[in-house]
Every structure is written in structure tokens, then in C-alpha cells.
């Protein structure tokens, strides 16, 4: 359990130590192959990001690169619960959820390179991955700005008469934005099947959670109480716990159309983004190393699988190797892909213009064209 969050843990999931989440109904349904698959997904995210970091440092990508390394169990655990009408939306730290929801590494890597073959045709970049066909609604750059959208997706699920939910992720810094509180109020008031997931990695850029959020000892999710919304705190390095408690919230959404706020404690190994020049200043070297040594979700899950007899060290190495090859191949694909054309700048702004319908002939949509 991350040290700075011990108090949160005290509040709700201290008892979780005593609970064996592997025995939760949703986890008992996992076959050994499913469990190994969860491991593979986590490894794929890590390799994808390690390779992207390498290329970022070579200067072939623009913009920011917010790495998810250290937090993989959160995306993989929660995304593994997706049903037909469960929707996902997150902030700019969005690669992990994208891959966990089944996006292809090629289209993701190409997006980082700004290539026409990218998932958003090179128009979005690292912070703006989308795959609506996989119920993935992005990738949003304004801290907290995606939280009303998440409530809206849940509103849509309910309005359209589906039995589903929206999982809306954010960082611990986002919970101080007004939009988040408005979204919570609407979710509580209108019984929206939304699950707000605070991925608490302890820091927003260089500011520790303790220095940014009032009343931290209660736990960040506890603010939900003011809106009559259920909440919980989860140990984000244990995939069994992530799945069991998130599923509980999803069932509340599916069956009662009620929202939940979950705070999932986790840690990021790298800086806020690769451009974070202070990455090593606001956290001690010891702290980072301790997390990597004792709290790495990949190692923890690997050990569990080995203990349970579903995986050998050699098999783990093989999974590692394959994921690395896949990531390298995606970088090659991205490198060899073309940039969009300058004329493409004007596509994807207006629906009818893209489709060349009669409507598009009325008026001018763009000046100086």
C-alpha cells in the first residue's frame, strides 16, 4: 500500500488485508488462461510504453508522453470487466486503457508518431486515443474536464435503455476541479450508472496529494458521501481486489443505476510526463525504488500466477519477449507510415463536409480556404 495513502486505506480497505479477493465470484470465473491473459495485457502496456519512451527520447514524437508504467493493474483489472454496454473514458494518461480495451499497438504507436495510420489519424497524439467501437471514448487533455463527459456517457446508457455503465478515470489532482463536483452531483441526483475512478498515484505533476487536497486523511473518494454516492478505496497493485471491488460498483450501476466513486491507490515510476524535468526532485530515489521493488503490479501478479501454478518463469519471460517484439514492430510500423497530408488538416471538423453531403454546400465553413 503506498505510504502516503495509508490513511485512506485505514478508512475503507484496511479490512481488505483480511479478505481473499481471489475468492470473489467475479475472480472465481477466471480460467487460468484468463489470468495469464491479464498478465500479458499488463506486460504489453509496459513494453509499449518503454519502447515509446525510447523513441520519444530520440525526438521523433511531439508533445507530451504521460507514461502509465506502475499503474497497469488498474487499467487491466477494470477493463477486463467490460460488457457490451460498459463504456470507458479517461484523462491524458490514456495508453494503458487503450491497450487493455483491445486497441491495436500499431494504431496507438502511429498516433504517438503523428502518422496518418494512427488511431486518430495523427490528429490527437498521446493524450487523445479513441476507439468508440471498443466503447473507448478517450483520451482527454483538460484535468477533470472528462468527468462530466463520463456522467454523460452514463446518461446515454440509461437514456438508450441499456444495462451498462461508464467507467470514468481521473488522477488524484482532478478531484479538486469544479467540473468533477458538478458531475458527482448530477450522477447522484439523476442516478447515473457512472463509476468515477480516481487513480491515486500520489502526485499531480510535482504536487503531492497531501499538498493539494483538503482533508486527505478521510480518503479522496470519501467526498462522494456529500453527494450520497457509495465509495471505496482499492489497493491498485492487486488485480483481484481491483476486479472484485470494481465489479461490485459495476453491478450497482447495472442493477440499480447508481454511481460509485473508487479510489485506486497506485504509483507511477516515471515523471509526470517525459518532459517532467523535476521527476526526481519531488519524490526521493528511495521512495521510487521501494515501489518498484515491493509494489510492482506486474511482479506481484506474476508471483501470484506462479504460486497458483498457472505460469512458469520461462513462460513469463516468453510473454515479455513477445510483447517487446510486438511493441518494436509497432514502432517500425509507425516509422514507416506516412504523415497526414497538409490538406488533411481540414478534415474531421464537420460531419457533412467529411461526407460531402448537400448540406456541406451551404455557406462556407472555413475562412481563407
Amino acid at each position, binding site marked *: 500500500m503506498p505510504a502516503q495513502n495509508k490513511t485512506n486505506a485505514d478508512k475503507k480497505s484496511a479490512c481488505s488485508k483480511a479478505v481473499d479477493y481471489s475468492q470473489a465470484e467475479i475472480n472465481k470465473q477466471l480460467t487460468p488462461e484468463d489470468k495469464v491473459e491479464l498478465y500479458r495485457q499488463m506486460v504489453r502496456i509496459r513494453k509499449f510504453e518503454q519502447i515509446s519512451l525510447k523513441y520519444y527520447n530520440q525526438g521523433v514524437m511531439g508533445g507530451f508522453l504521460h507514461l502509465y508504467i506502475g499503474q497497469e493493474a488498474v487499467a487491466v483489472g477494470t477493463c477486463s470487466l467490460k460488457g457490451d454496454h460498459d463504456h470507458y*473514458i479517461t484523462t491524458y494518461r490514456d495508453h494503458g486503457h487503450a491497450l487493455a480495451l483491445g486497441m491495436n499497438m500499431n494504431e496507438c504507436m502511429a498516433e504517438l508518431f503523428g502518422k496518418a495510420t494512427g488511431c*486518430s489519424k495523427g490528429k490527437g497524439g498521446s493524450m487523445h486515443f479513441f476507439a*468508440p467501437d471498443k466503447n473507448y471514448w*478517450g483520451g482527454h487533455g483538460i484535468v477533470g474536464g472528462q468527468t462530466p*463527459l463520463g456522467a*454523460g456517457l452514463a446518461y446515454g446508457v440509461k437514456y438508450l435503455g441499456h444495462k451498462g455503465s461508464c467507467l470514468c478515470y481521473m488522477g488524484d489532482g482532478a478531484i479538486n476541479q469544479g467540473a468533477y463536483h458538478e458531475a458527482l452531483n448530477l450522477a447522484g441526483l439523476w442516478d447515473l450508472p457512472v463509476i468515477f475512478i480516481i487513480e491515486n498515484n500520489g502526485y499531480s505533476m510535482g504536487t503531492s496529494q497531501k499538498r493539494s487536497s483538503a482533508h486527505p486523511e478521510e480518503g479522496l473518494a470519501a467526498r462522494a458521501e456529500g453527494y450520497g454516492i457509495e465509495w471505496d478505496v482499492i489497493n491498485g497493485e492487486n488485480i483481484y481486489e481491483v476486479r472484485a471491488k470494481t465489479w461490485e460498483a459495476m453491478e450497482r450501476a447495472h442493477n440499480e443505476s447508481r454511481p460509485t466513486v473508487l479510489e485506486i491507490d497506485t504509483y507511477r515510476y516515471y515523471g509526470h510526463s517525459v518532459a517532467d524535468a523535476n521527476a526526481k526532485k519531488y519524490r526521493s530515489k528511495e521512495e521510487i525504488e521501494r515501489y518498484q521493488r515491493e509494489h510492482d503490479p506486474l511482479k506481484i501478479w506474476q508471483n501470484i500466477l506462479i504460486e497458483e501454478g498457472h505460469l512458469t518463469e520461462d513462460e513469463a519471460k516468453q510473454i515479455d519477449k513477445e510483447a517487446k517484439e510486438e511493441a518494436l514492430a509497432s514502432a517500425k510500423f509507425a516509422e514507416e507510415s506516412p504523415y497526414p497530408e497538409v490538406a488533411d488538416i481540414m478534415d*474531421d471538423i464537420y460531419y457533412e463536409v*467529411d461526407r460531402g453531403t448537400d448540406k456541406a454546400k451551404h455557406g462556407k*465553413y472555413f475562412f481563407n480556404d
Partner: protein
Amino acid sequence: MPLITYRQALNEALAEEIERDENVVLIGEEVAEYNGAYKVTEGLWAKYGDKRVVDAPISEAGFIGMGVGASMLGVRPVMELMFWSFAYVAMDQMINNAATVRYMSGGLINCPIVVRGPANGGTNVGATHSHTPENLFASMPGLKVVVPATAYDAKGLMKAAIRDDDPVYVMENTLLYGEKWEVPTNDELEEGELVIPLGVADLKREGTDLSIIAHGRCVIESLKAAEVLKHDHGLDVEVLDLRSIRPLDEDAILATVRKTNNVLLVDENRPFCGVSSMIATIIQEKAFDDLDGPIMRVNTIDAPAIYSPGVEPHQLPNVDRIVAKVLDMQISK
């Protein structure tokens, strides 16, 4: 053809679209039980119920953002802002999310939301409640901005806005809500319905000596000014109503300029970086040789809205200011 108010026309448009498409839902502060702060949604909640007409808390960023999210999934929310001045509270959702999600997703996501409500000064409610922000939103690619000047246009444009697959922001005018115009019933129309395509300007008055280009309530003031100029000064003024700011009917603008060779822009935006600045630039770039004199403008006087009922009418474009400006231009017939 029945004479109905601008407000009734909007109400009819909303009702017809609710009936036509089960995914259309009205959301806003006081739109349901209270029947609308300006009574545009009167009777709709009683008729269509809680699912289709929804009262929102005073929470513009929250509920507009929620509408954007729901629209991505296929709901077609029509959101009411009590005043467009409050759009500033929801600006992040209206610009960073609604306007850009289609682009940033490489065209994967549509956002068919409508945001509507009154945007205007002239009701003596001071600076925070009198904004006319069409220039701000029209400057953002991805958004469409519509400003109806009559009941006829209000009905037709609102229906088109709701059917549109992009975010459309409809700016109504409180001072026009109670005014009446002829609006055909659906039975009287060959097409069966009044739907006015966005991006088509309307020549509200033909003339040969001068083109006034305007939108919203300024069209009405310009038409009155044109009558005065005809009657008292023998000037034959043409009035072009833009109806939508984006998409903008550039062809109609250039056509009227080429016809009369004199242009006055009348625009409730302030002059600095306003809609009229943009239109003046277009004319200068594309029809400079057709001009007999400089392009002139009547805008809202460039200060925050003054409260004083004795003064505010003079801050806005009005008949007197328009007539005076035209006479200043010394147009030769």
C-alpha cells in the same frame, strides 16, 4: 399563415423534433416544471414527461458537459442556457470538448448537441447578463453558430440545428421572444415541414444603393432604418440577414456587395474582434474593387453593458444610430 411569436416558433420546433426523434431530449435550468425561464419550453414537460424534458441544477459545466458525453453515444440533447452569458461557466465543455472531439478522434466521434438560449443586451440587466458571444464560438472550428432574427427563421433554423450532426449553438434574443411573424403551419408547406438549412443567408429587403449586413435583432433594427432612409432620404437599402455566423454565406455577402457597392455592417457584437471585423475582412479580401467607399460599422459601444435603462438602448445598434451612420457615409444614388 398564422402570426406567431418568436417564442412560440421555437416551442413548436422543439415539440416537433421531440416527436420526430426519440433521442431528442431537452435539458436545462427550469425548462421542465417551471416551463422555461423565458417560457420557450412552455408545456413541453407536461406533454412529454420527465424523460424528454429535464430540469438541471444550476451547474452549467456539469450539465453541458454531460450533454456532450451523452451526444457522443447517440442521444441528441438540446441544452438551454438561461442566458448565453452563462456559457462562460461551461466554456471548457463547449470548446475543449464539444468542438474538438470529432477532430481529435480523427472523425470517429460525432457530437450532435444543441445549446440554445437568449444572447443579447438591451434588457437592463448589467454587464454579466448581457453578453452576445457569437464571435467567440464562431471563431472555433467544429462549432456552428446560428442567430435567428424572426419567428420564421427561429423555427426553421432550430429544427435544422437539432438534426445537425455537429454541435450547433443557437443564440436567441430576449427582446424578440414576444414579437410576431407569419410562420406557415406544416399543412401549408409543400415540404411538410419548415427546416432552414444552416449557412444560407436571407435577403430580407432588396435595394440598390447600400447593403446592410446584419444578424439577429440587428436585422430588425436595420429593416426599420431602411424604411426611414427610404422615406426621409430616398435611399434604397438592401438588408442581408446572415442567419448563421458559421457556416457563413460568403456568396450572399459578396453578391450584395457587388450589387450595391456600399456596405454597412450592423452587429450587436462589440467592434473589437467581433463578427463584423471578420466580415469586413472577407469583403476587403474578395470584393475590394467593388466598393465605392469604406466599409462602415455599427456595433455595440465598446464597453461592458451599462445597466441604466436610460442609456443602454444607445449602447446597442438601433435605428437612430444606423440611420446616422448611413447619412455619414454620404452615398451617392
